[in-house]
């Protein structure tokens, strides 16, 4: 059964006010287009969860979509601060819940596994544990020593960007895979955005590459360049210049609102956004091919 639909339809159908939303991807494959569409559709009171909020949650918070943020590293990767989120936190205008990367990812793994908690070895750094009551301790029944545990995180909806998927939602991902699989299995609803929609035959030629199977997927959207200014391995480069530029834009509320008006509210969809970026940016982000050696599954 095909689950193909437009990104606008998918967001409208599966992302609701007040939802706990996980836009997945560690630096790689961040579904910016989905964040922009959520902004355009004016969602409110979202709980935004991501290990690294990155620019996309800075933008969504600036647009007023967020009630709370759950994170483990609130920086502009390779640049510095996420200034919108930082201002909101320093002003007490946004709730937050904080983990280390491992704590955050362990919450997703527990959520994806259907477990009530998962353990981690102690780190001796207890300040965050004291600040966040969802960190707990459990006694190892074998040694009598303590481990740190976190509860499952099960987002209402996860958006997962992938290189290629078939129309049913079986998805191939390569390059940095971060927490894509765990977020998809943890979530109650899953939206796949894909650079390419391919035939089942392409997916089924390499089943070990499929991280997400169709039957946990609700919608499949064909969204080329979805990840810009993040990137899609093999398809286009990370726009490091824009990450630097955001550091300037996000200095002032007015520049941020001007950006939202021009680049989010001012365009109908990702196609228009990509066209607006222009030929020079397209050329700058272009990448030459470097193909994997195929493997032989055998015609059994």
């Amino acid at each position, binding site marked *: 059964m095909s689950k193909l639909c437009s990104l606008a339809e998918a967001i409208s159908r599966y992302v609701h006010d007040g939802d706990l939303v996980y836009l997945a991807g560690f630096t*790689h494959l961040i579904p910016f287009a989905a964040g922009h569409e959520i902004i355009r559709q004016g969602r409110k009171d979202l709980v935004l969860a991501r*290990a690294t909020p990155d620019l996309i949650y800075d933008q969504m918070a600036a647009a007023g979509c967020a009630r709370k943020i759950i994170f483990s*590293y609130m920086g502009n990767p390779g640049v510095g601060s996420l200034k919108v989120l930082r201002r909101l936190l320093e002003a007490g205008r946004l709730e937050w819940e904080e983990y280390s*990367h*491992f704590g955050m990812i362990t919450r997703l793994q527990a959520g994806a596994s259907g477990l009530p908690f998962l353990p*981690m*070895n102690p780190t001796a*750094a207890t300040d965050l544990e004291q600040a966040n009551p969802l960190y707990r301790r459990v006694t190892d029944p074998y040694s009598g020593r303590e481990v740190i545990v976190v509860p499952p995180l099960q987002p209402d909806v996860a958006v997962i960007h992938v290189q290629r998927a078939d129309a049913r939602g079986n998805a191939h991902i390569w390059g940095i*895979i971060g927490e894509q699989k765990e977020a998809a299995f943890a979530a109650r609803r899953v939206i796949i955005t894909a650079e390419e929609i391919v035939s089942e035959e392409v997916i089924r030629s390499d089943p070990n590459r499929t991280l997400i199977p169709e039957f946990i997927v609700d919608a499949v959207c064909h969204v080329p360049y979805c990840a810009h200014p993040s990137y899609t391995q093999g398809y286009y480069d990370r726009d490091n210049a824009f990450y630097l530029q955001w550091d300037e834009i996000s200095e002032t509320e007015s520049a941020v609102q001007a950006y939202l008006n021009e680049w989010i509210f001012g365009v109908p969809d990702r196609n228009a956004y990509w066209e607006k970026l222009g030929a020079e940016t397209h050329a700058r982000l272009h990448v030459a091919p*470097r193909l994997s050696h195929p493997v032989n599954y055998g015609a059994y």
Partner: protein
Amino acid sequence: MTELWTASELMTINAARLLRDGDVVFVGVGLPNLACNLARRTHAPNLYMIYEAGVIGARPNRLPLSIGDPTLVSGAAAVCSMYDIFTLYLQRGNVDVGFLGGAQIDRYGNINATVIGEYTHPRVRLPGSGGSMEIAAWANRCYIITPHQKRRFPERVDFCTSAGFLSGKGERQAAGVRGSGPQAVVTNLGILEPDENGELILTALHPGATLADARENTGWPLRTAAELKETVPPSAEELRILREELDPQGIYLK
């Protein structure tokens, strides 16, 4: 201080020299990445670089500008999930060296990358732990590269994001974490190392730097090793590799 090299170059070169051939290193971008690549091109050709984004044995063709730069992936030996990198690699004890950084490093090597002021009412909200809470605990050895400034070296961190020796080596040992903690802090003035109680003391000065400089820029009464060494000046070859091969545009080494 002579101007034959920048402070960043000096710190990077001295950090590189701390690495041993065959070390498996959990690398961040910026100076730690440059230090590792310099070590690989000099005394540690078998240094093995892994990244918290899940990239193993990276061989970047260009200078990576973020922890998830695609050049780290193309041509790498392996890529795995974040859950795997923190469990199978770090928690399992497969990582020899971790690099750490933060806004504050205190007398016992504890690091604050979370908040200046009160946690619930932050004066300055910093990015937070990321991978560093677990790296500081479970990597066999940790190194810190940081400019030597009084505000960066308080007596006690406002918030302990990553454990050094807490209030002394005994307390870290009692906590039962597997790693041996911070082994050196490389600054633009010299090198600090933990004494037998885990207190950071000055063990070496860079050429031209003075003990007075170091004391003035440290927020606790800085003690020195019985024998205070002077670091070997950067060699022409080390500087050449950094400037010509690793960061020709001077993105990190300005």
